[in-house]
Every structure is written in C-alpha cells, then in structure tokens.
C-alpha cells in the first residue's frame, strides 16, 4: 500500500508523459524538417547551378560558332579581290618597280612568316573548369569539411 503510494507520488502525471512524447516527436519532426530543408535548399541550388552551367555551355558553343563566322566574314572583307576593288575605288593603283624606293635598314631581315600560335612547350593546362564544390554531395562536403578542420588544427583524423 505504502509502495503504491510512493510510486504514485513520484509517478509522472499521464498528461505530462503525453506532453513529453509529443515534445520528443515534435523535436524529431523539426530536426527531420530542418535536415530536409537544408537538403532541399542545397538540391535546388545544385539544380540551378547545373542548369546555369548547361546554359553557359550552350552559350559557349554558340560563341565558338559566332567567332568562327566573324573570322570568316572578316576574311571575306579582307580578301585579295575585295581589297583590290576598295583600293581602286579610293584611287590607289598597284605599285610597279619604278614606284619603289629601297632603303637599307640595318638588322631588318625581311617579313617573317606568321605565328598564329606559340611553339610547342610545357604549359600548364586546366583539366576542368567546373570547381569540385559544384559536383560534391552533402555527405562529401561534410566529410571534406570535417577533414579539413581536423587537419587545420593539426589533429590526427
């Protein structure tokens, strides 16, 4: 009888137990929602970045086509026949042997053949233009972050 009284005296009221359960459930729910929220946010960010990269890649392709086209258009405008026509329109005529005066210029070796690109040599090249942070998962980010933190503190992982 006494035992029962003692137990009853120290026993939580049923409503308090229920509240504790509800609280615990709500805590789990809130933590779950927070994690989901973070995951959703990062996924959305990654998706937006991915879409943007795709757009930029398409833009790059368009620009490459445009650059090639503009180079060719420029070449059309500088073609031998076109330039000859323009020069004649402006009143110029082709130089003959009699029109040319030769002056010795010490050290001048004459016109050199064009160099459109550097000669072969050792030059560092970027393997990829997308930063690794755009490709890593949340887990990889956490793992790498923890690893970097430990390393920066001089601790053994």
């Amino acid at each position, binding site marked *: 009888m006494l035992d029962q009284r003692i137990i009853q005296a120290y026993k939580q009221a049923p409503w308090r137990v229920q509240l504790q359960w509800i609280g615990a459930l709500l805590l789990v729910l809130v933590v779950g929602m927070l994690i989901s929220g973070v995951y959703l946010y990062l996924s959305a960010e990654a998706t937006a970045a991915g879409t943007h990269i795709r757009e930029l890649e398409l833009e790059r392709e368009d620009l490459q086509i445009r650059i090639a086209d503009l180079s060719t258009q420029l070449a059309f405008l500088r073609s031998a*026949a076109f330039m000859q026509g323009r020069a004649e329109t402006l009143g110029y005529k082709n130089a*003959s042997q009699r029109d040319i005066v030769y002056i010795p210029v010490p050290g001048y070796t004459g016109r050199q053949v064009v160099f459109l690109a550097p000669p*072969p040599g050792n030059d560092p090249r970027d393997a990829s233009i997308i930063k690794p942070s755009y490709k890593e998962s949340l887990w990889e980010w956490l793992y790498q972050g923890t690893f970097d933190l430990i390393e920066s503190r001089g601790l053994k992982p």
Partner: protein
Amino acid sequence: MNSTNSRLRFVGVIFIIIGLAIIFQIVRVQNSPQAKEMISFLEKNYNQEIRVIKPERGNIYDRWGNLLAGNTEVYEVGIAPPQVINSDTIAQDLSSILGLDFTQIKKIARSYVEEGNQQYMVVADFVSADKVHLLENKLAEYEKAAKPKKGAAPSLNGVHWVAHLRRSYPENALAANILGFYNFYDRVDGRGILGLEEQYNNLLAGTATRVVLPMNPTAIQEIPSVPPGSSLILTIDRGIQAAVERIAQKAQEDNGAESVTILVMDPETGEMLAMATTPAFNPNEYQKYGEVFPQGSHYNRAISQLYEPGSVFKVLTMAAALDSGAVTPETTFVDTGAIEVGGLWIYNWDRGAWGPQDMTGCMQHSLNVCLAWTATEMGPTTFYTYIQNFGLGKYTGIDLAGEQVYPLSLPGDQNWYPINLGTNAFGQGVAATPVQMITAIAAVANDGRMMAPHIVKAYIQDGHQYDISPRLIRQVIKPETARAMTEMLANSLENEASVALVEGYRVSGKTGTAEIPGPRGYESSVTNASFVGWGPSDDPKFIVYIWLEKPTSSPWGSVVAAPVFSEVVSELTVLMKLPPDSIRQQMAQP
C-alpha cells in the same frame, strides 16, 4: 465496451494488413524485372543525352596569316508539329523568307493536328544568318503584338533554328586548285576532296568525341572541350597567288590557250609561293565541279597533268652533260642540222643547220641536234642516272592529293629504244608534270641541291604551331655546274634579247615548245609552250615555270610563254620586295 474495443482492434488490424500489403506491393513492383527494365530504358533514353561533338574544321591560312579556308555560321530550320499554334503564320513566313513551298510547310505544320505526327521535321538547312535574323524579328514582332479577338494569334511557335558551321572559302576561286574543297552539304559523311582538303583531311577534321551527358541538372558533367581540327599555314603568298592567277587568266585569253599553268617556287627551300592553273573554280560552289571540269580534265594541272615538256627539258640534259664532264660551256659542236641516233634521224626545230656552236649557243638556239649529241656523249647510263636523280619518273611527294607520274623508260625496258636517248635529250618521249619539272630545274637554281616541293609551312594543333622544315631530296649536280648552267642561261637570254628579260634584274631561263603526240604521231599544229626561269641569277630567290597548253596565237614558247614569265617576274620583284640587282649589290657592299 469490450465488443467495441475488439471491433476497433479488428478494423485496425485490417488497415495495418492493407497498409502492409500496399507497402509490399510497392516494393515488389519497384523491384520486379519489368520495373528494372523500364528504369534502365528511361535512364538510357531520357536521363542522359548521347552527343557526338564534331570539332570545328581547321582553318587554312597563307604564309602571312590571310584566311583561305574557314567556317561560316548557317542554320538548320525545322518544325516540331505538336508545338505549332498557328500553321498559317509559319507557312507564310517560311515561304516568304526562306522561299519554301507554302502548301508543303502548312501541311507539315498541321501534321500533328491532322495525323498526330510528333516527329521534328527539318524543312531547310544551310540557311544564312541574315534570313534567320528576319525570322527572329518576326518572332519578336508576334510576341509584342496584341492578341486578336478572333482566331489564333500569329505565332512562330513550333519553328526551331539551330546554328552549325559550314566550310567557307573567303577568297572564292583564289588558290582553289591548291585547297581542293570540302563537300559541306553532306553533313554526315562530308570530307575533303582534292588538294589540301583531301591530303590533310584527318588533320583538318580533328577527332569527333562521343559524350554521355546526364539530363539530371544536379548530376553536372562538364562537356569536354573538343579541340578544333588542326589549322594549316601554307607556303603560298596570297599576293603572289592572286597576281599569278590574274596573269594566267589573261595569258589564256590573249593566246587562246586551252589552259595556263604557272608555278612560283623558292628554289632554296622548295616552298611553293604560288601555283595557278586555269580554269578558275570557286570551291564555295563545289556542286558546279562537273561544269567546270568535264570528265577527263584535271583539277590541278600543275600536279596531275602529264605532258611532254619539250625544250625546257634541255636544262636537265645540259646540266647532266656539264656535271658528268661530257662537255664544258666552251665545247664547240658543229651543227649540220641532223644527227642519227639509234638508226633514226633527229632534226632541229627549224630543220636548219646552225654551224659551230658552243654550249651556250646550243641552249640559246635550242638546238635539238646539239642536245641529242650531248646525250650520246654522256651515254645512256650516265644520262638516265642524272635524269632519275632529277626525279623524273618519280613522285615529287608534294603534299597535295592527286599527284600523277609517268614512268621513265630506261634502257632495257620493253618500251625503250636507242632513239629515245636522242629524243629524250630535248624533252620528247618523256612525260612529266609541271611540278616535277620545276622541282628538277630548281636544283640547278639552288647550287645543285634539289629540295622537296611543299605547300604546308606549319600546322597548328592543340594550340601550338609546329613548323615543317624544308627537306633536301639530294645533291643532283655540283654547285659549280649549277652556277655555270645559270650563267649560260642568263647569257643566252641576253644574247637573243629575249622578251623574257626583266629590266633591272638578271634572270636565267629557257623556252620550250613541244609538239603534242596524237594517234598518228606528233601533231605540229598544236603545241605545249613552256618557259622556265629563275632569278636574280647571282642569288636566285624564285623560280617560275610557265606552261600554255595548245596556244592558238603562236605555237612557240619564246613568243607566248616568255612574255608571261617577264610579266610574272615584274610582279614578283615588287611583291617579294626584291631590289634591282644594282641596288642589291650596292646594299651588299660594306
């Protein structure tokens, strides 16, 4: 109360069983073989895109960086029938701007509504950027326009245009015989045809790369940067090429020739500075190839048309005779107008007897009898050894597709007769291409060193420029022989006051007139007129080879080809900035 509880428990159990059954079914369906197959199918078809990235075809530049072959932007225009809102607008605009058939376009635009066609259909390709800009303007106009109260609003919805590159030749017909062409209208199997486009097709085309791109934007994968095809930098000088082509065209018209070929080479390196042949051809309109080059005609006569060169060949015979010691420039030959070789008689071009002549006189008057005699003095073994060393009967190896060669008949061959020694000595009974002839004779202009003729000076690959070094084929004759020969040919031009001479510059050269062999022997009515010359004689910087095929104004090389040489050299000295000899010699003095 108990009864209520038990009922509730029963209902609860039923719901739990149903719930579990649903979960079980979900797991079972998702893991069934059919589901796996479907997932795999969807992943393959919708979750990733397989793209074959064709690199941009490499450019071709002249030696100064002027673009000779590049790429231009064109568009493919298509219709996606399910996206079409207003088929009338599409038919109207595509027919007016692109010149397509109104009825046909309308039928395609309405094909989803009428037949359920969902397939994207290409309606035009290689549409210029200007026309696509007009379509873009229309699109912008319709987007801004107010919606009509009745009927569908004007719209180009469902019409798509995608840019791609098309091979383009900004200089049009200039150097077309060197460049060849790319059959760009074949977007699948397009390839370089003839000339450099064929010779360097693999290098220019680059390597197509196949990539699998995930459609899921979170699974980012970088599209690999496919390097463009290699670009070529030629030895050709655009200015010289343009001038030489203009002169060739004029020479053909003035002389009523079937064709004219002019080659300009740097004898020291073997670099071709210009290579002009007629007729002109615009590779931007390569579909007209058949009209310009009827069956049997040659795209680039300089490398692919064999002909009997005639008296220009005498340069090689005399060089061999001098080098072997069979004769010296002062050796006297008494020309009686005929010589018997191998039981047959050989006569001079005028059937005349020219009396005592030194070797310069023999070359100056182009005496067949004298040259046949020098060949017999050398003997067949020595003569043909030299001729073979000069590269006759062998490919020069010039880096252009389509080079032809005619085998040289040698003693012991079935088709060689003793008379050949006499006739071959003055360029009859041997066939060569102009590039073979200029390569061989360039050795005489370059102290006896025969350089490999080439068109490509450097190439650009993966962002680096790689130079191609000149290649020595062999030392054919001694330097002193080459200089003596150059002197003899300069004197012979001066002695006869040739129309090939150029004021202010000493040049060496030789004319050539060759009858053309036909089914009934040699026809004297039609000839091949040639001229080969180089200069300045004391330090040759250029060698020029001229060939007029079947000229009608005069059959003689000295009349039709020699003035063309003079005209070419007059332009060359300006374009190459070569000072007249007197100024150059003054400048060379300390």
